[in-house]
């Protein structure tokens, strides 16, 4: 409903605009062509006066007619040419006798008359039905109407245009230059109401008719003027709807090709030209229709140019190109390129063949052939130019795409590549952008989950530590209790050991979780790898000696400098050696070695396992242990900690199992000391 109303409003407002424009154009044309203003200033005013004058004798037309008749009679009296005798015939042919006249000299008063007593020239009473008298006494004209004398020019000076009396006897009326009129006497009578003659022609009956026509014309003009004004006002009120209508019109007209519009315009100009030259007749309707159509078409074109940006671009050539591109787009990029080159070749050959065929068939003159061939050549060059430009753009886009790929590789996930929608590589760039945003999302999610993990670990660790503190504290209090039976003391001892182990495990879990999620605080320094291993061995000397195992240590005397966090690396070897101490076969040998190779420092701890090793199991997984019974002490996190700490320091950690031989390798890049000490 609303849309219907809207549509109606649009059309209505547009029509209002168009009508008001037509009115303005019409008035402009009338004003310019009729010379209404330029020629005769008070012409329109007089016409209006005449049209609405109830007494036809007061119209300027009547005055002009009567003055004219007088002039004619005087001319006929002064020179009797063939032409002048015709005047009498003309006066006499009116069977209605709307004008009565008598003309002559005092000697021969009624030399000419049409029934009016010549003797009564001036003095005789007016016959019935006549109320107007014009009398010329040889010098001057006097007019009486209904017995009263009419004031013609009070001051005796003639002014053109004013009241339209065009009679002799007034100074500066140069029109009357008759000589020998002194003896002439002319009397002219006019009917109160003109009677339409049964036969012949009367110049007076024409006046009321003209009055009616004038009135109609004025009413019509006024109506159209008012219509125009109202339409213009309505347009002003609804100009927003009119704009929408313009847009709709532009959409519609934009659909046509430029060539079509150009053709229509040319046809229209021809039509108008033909009308103007050949049909300058009275066929007002046809003429008006053509004017309206021309105005409408002009409006459509201007409107089209105003709202359609692609006014010039929407032509047959571009449309053909576009549909070709659609066809091309369905194919993969490499085929597109080959296809395009082929299409160019085909188009060039076709154009050349067309040119040659046309010149072969039609050759009116050498000049035409030359111009036509030049045009064909220009078209061929233009096609090549378009192809080259497209190719250049594609190569440029390839460069952009390559840059974007390296940008994504270097970790920039924010900058996206936007190629124009019609670019050959548009879809590729779009897909790259999607990959980029996908990576961005993944990274963000991972960061978020890492963050949550750390928070969880911290909270859990805190929640475990608090009760553990209480347990340890109370066990300690129990331990201090005296006079307890021996078996209770045993129990307390076990509680003490197990709570201590629990404490270590909690700490280990916390540390390994932090290290694996990369949230460990690193304090990297340059240190001697060999010395660190020796220090760790020395630190664990008591346990080593108590184990009964033989440690074969092979570490170079010269320092092997690496870059690592000493505390973390100490924990790595503490765990590895502790592992060896715990799981080695009694009396077997443990090999601790440090070797340098290819800029790498590789340390290894090898031992023979007491238990059969499961070569499938990943020993560095958390809580995986060589013995599934889990009777031994240790958190089961030793190797996991060793691995994650090594990796946190930037080293590599590897476990290898060969039957019962267990080997752990820790390798770091050797740090090159520039100035040797």
């Amino acid at each position, binding site marked *: 409903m609303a849309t219907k109303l809207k549509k109606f409003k649009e059309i209505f407002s547009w029509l209002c605009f168009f009508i008001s424009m037509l009115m303005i154009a019409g008035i402009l044309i009338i004003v310019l062509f009729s010379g209404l203003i330029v020629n005769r200033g008070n012409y329109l005013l007089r016409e209006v006066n005449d049209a609405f004058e109830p007494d036809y004798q007061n119209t300027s037309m009547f005055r002009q007619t009567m003055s004219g008749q007088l002039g004619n009679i005087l001319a006929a009296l002064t020179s009797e040419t063939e032409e002048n005798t015709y005047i009498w015939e003309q006066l006499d042919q009116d069977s209605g006798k709307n004008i009565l006249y008598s003309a002559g000299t005092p000697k021969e008063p009624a030399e000419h008359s049409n029934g009016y007593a010549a003797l009564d020239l001036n003095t005789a009473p007016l016959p019935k039905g006549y109320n107007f008298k014009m009398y010329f006494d040889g010098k001057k004209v006097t007019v009486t109407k209904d017995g009263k004398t009419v004031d013609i020019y009070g001051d005796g000076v003639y002014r053109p245009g004013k009241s339209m009396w065009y009679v002799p006897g007034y100074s500066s009326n140069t029109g009357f230059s008759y000589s020998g009129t002194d003896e002439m006497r002319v009397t002219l009578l006019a009917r109160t109401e003109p009677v339409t003659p049964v036969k012949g022609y009367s110049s007076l009956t024409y006046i009321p008719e003209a009055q009616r026509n004038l009135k109609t014309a004025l009413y019509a003009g006024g109506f159209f003027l008012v219509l125009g004004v109202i339409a213009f006002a309505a347009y002003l009120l609804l100009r927003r709807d009119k704009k929408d209508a313009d847009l709709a019109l532009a959409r519609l007209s934009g659909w046509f090709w430029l060539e079509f519009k150009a053709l229509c315009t040319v046809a229209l100009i021809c039509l108008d030209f033909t009308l103007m030259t050949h049909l300058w007749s009275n066929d007002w309707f046809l003429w008006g229709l053509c004017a309206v159509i021309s105005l409408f078409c002009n409006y459509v074109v201007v409107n089209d140019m105003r709202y359609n940006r692609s006014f010039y671009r929407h032509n047959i050539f571009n449309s053909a190109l576009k549909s070709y591109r659609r066809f091309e787009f369905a194919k993969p990029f490499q085929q597109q390129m080959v296809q395009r080159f082929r299409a160019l070749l085909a188009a060039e050959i076709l154009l050349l063949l067309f040119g040659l065929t046309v010149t072969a068939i039609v050759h009116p003159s050498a000049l035409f052939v030359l111009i036509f061939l030049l045009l064909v050549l220009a078209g061929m060059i233009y096609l090549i130019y378009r192809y080259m430009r497209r190719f250049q753009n594609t190569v440029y886009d390839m460069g952009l795409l390559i840059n974007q790929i390296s940008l994504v590789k270097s970790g920039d996930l924010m900058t996206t590549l936007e190629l124009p929608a019609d670019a050959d590589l548009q879809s590729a760039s779009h897909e790259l952008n999607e990959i980029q945003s996908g990576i961005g999302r993944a990274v963000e999610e991972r960061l978020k989950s890492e963050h949550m993990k750390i928070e969880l670990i*911290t909270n859990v*660790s*805190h929640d475990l*530590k*608090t009760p*553990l*503190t*209480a*347990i*340890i*504290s*109370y066990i*300690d*209090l129990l331990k*201090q209790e005296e006079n307890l039976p021996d078996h209770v003391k045993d129990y307390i001892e076990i509680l003490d050991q197990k709570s201590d182990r629990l*404490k270590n495990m909690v*700490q280990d879990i*916390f540390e390994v979780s932090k290290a694996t999620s990369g949230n460990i*605080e690193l304090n990297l*320094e340059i*240190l*001697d*790898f060999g*010395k*660190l291993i*020796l*220090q*760790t*061995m*020395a*630190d664990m*000397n008591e346990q080593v000696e108590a184990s009964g195992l033989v440690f074969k240590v092979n570490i170079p005397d010269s320092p092997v400098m*690496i870059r*690592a966090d*000493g*505390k973390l*690396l*100490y924990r790595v070897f503490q765990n590895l050696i502790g592992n060896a101490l715990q799981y080695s076969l009694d009396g077997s040998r443990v090999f601790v070695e440090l070797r340098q190779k290819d800029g790498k420092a590789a340390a290894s701890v090898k031992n023979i396992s007491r238990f059969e090793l499961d070569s499938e199991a990943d020993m560095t997984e958390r809580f995986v242990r060589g013995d599934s019974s889990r009777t031994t002490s240790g958190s089961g996190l030793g190797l996991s900690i060793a691995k994650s700490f090594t990796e946190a320091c930037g080293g590599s950690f590897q476990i290898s199992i060969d039957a019962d031989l267990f080997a752990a390798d820790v390798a770091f890049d050797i740090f090159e000391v520039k100035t040797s000490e």
Partner: protein
Amino acid sequence: MKKKHILIVDDDREIVRAIAILLEKEGYSALCAYDGLEAVDAAMNNDVQLILIDVMMPKLNGLSAVMKIREKRNIPIIVLSAKSEDTDKILGLGMGADDYVTKPFNPMELVARVRSQLRRYLSLGDINANTHANEILDGRLAYNTEERVLRADGDPVRLTATETKIVDLLMRNLGRIFPAEEIYRRVWNEPAYCAENTVMVHIRRIREKIELNPKEPEYLKVVWGIGYKIEKV
């Protein structure tokens, strides 16, 4: 001698009670508080010589409580916390705590730390005031270069001749890192042989005599992969 009052603050009442019993056995009298506000209140209104305070507590965070108490009182404060990160420790000490003990703690170590802090607060103040010219001070430690005597919390530490030589070397060069070979050469006056093991054995023994928790030494430290040093506190 008048009993020393110790304020124990933790939102876990059982822990507070255990510590209180532990300290009372050692001859201290314990005052208890269960959140930060109570702690500030108790510290202001009682004659308290030392405060043990937890960090994560309701109402007022332990560290904020420490800052408030520090405005008025200059008594030793030991922070007890489940947070074991270095940054947490640095933050706690920066806020005005004298010591930072991570949970779960060894009760005996806690007692030792309390004793150490109290001794330094109550009696060592005088000794510090009358510093001898030839005395090197480092936190709890004081080494007299003339007498070649090392004191921890004012008590003389009984060291063997070799240990004394090592302590002498490290105390005279506080914070400097000595490789095992250098220590060996300078202490034994012999070319280094199996230096790492030998030095480490002595280091461990000295630690047991001077450190409150020999497993987590505060003074005599190994700088892994480089050497040994006594930390300058």
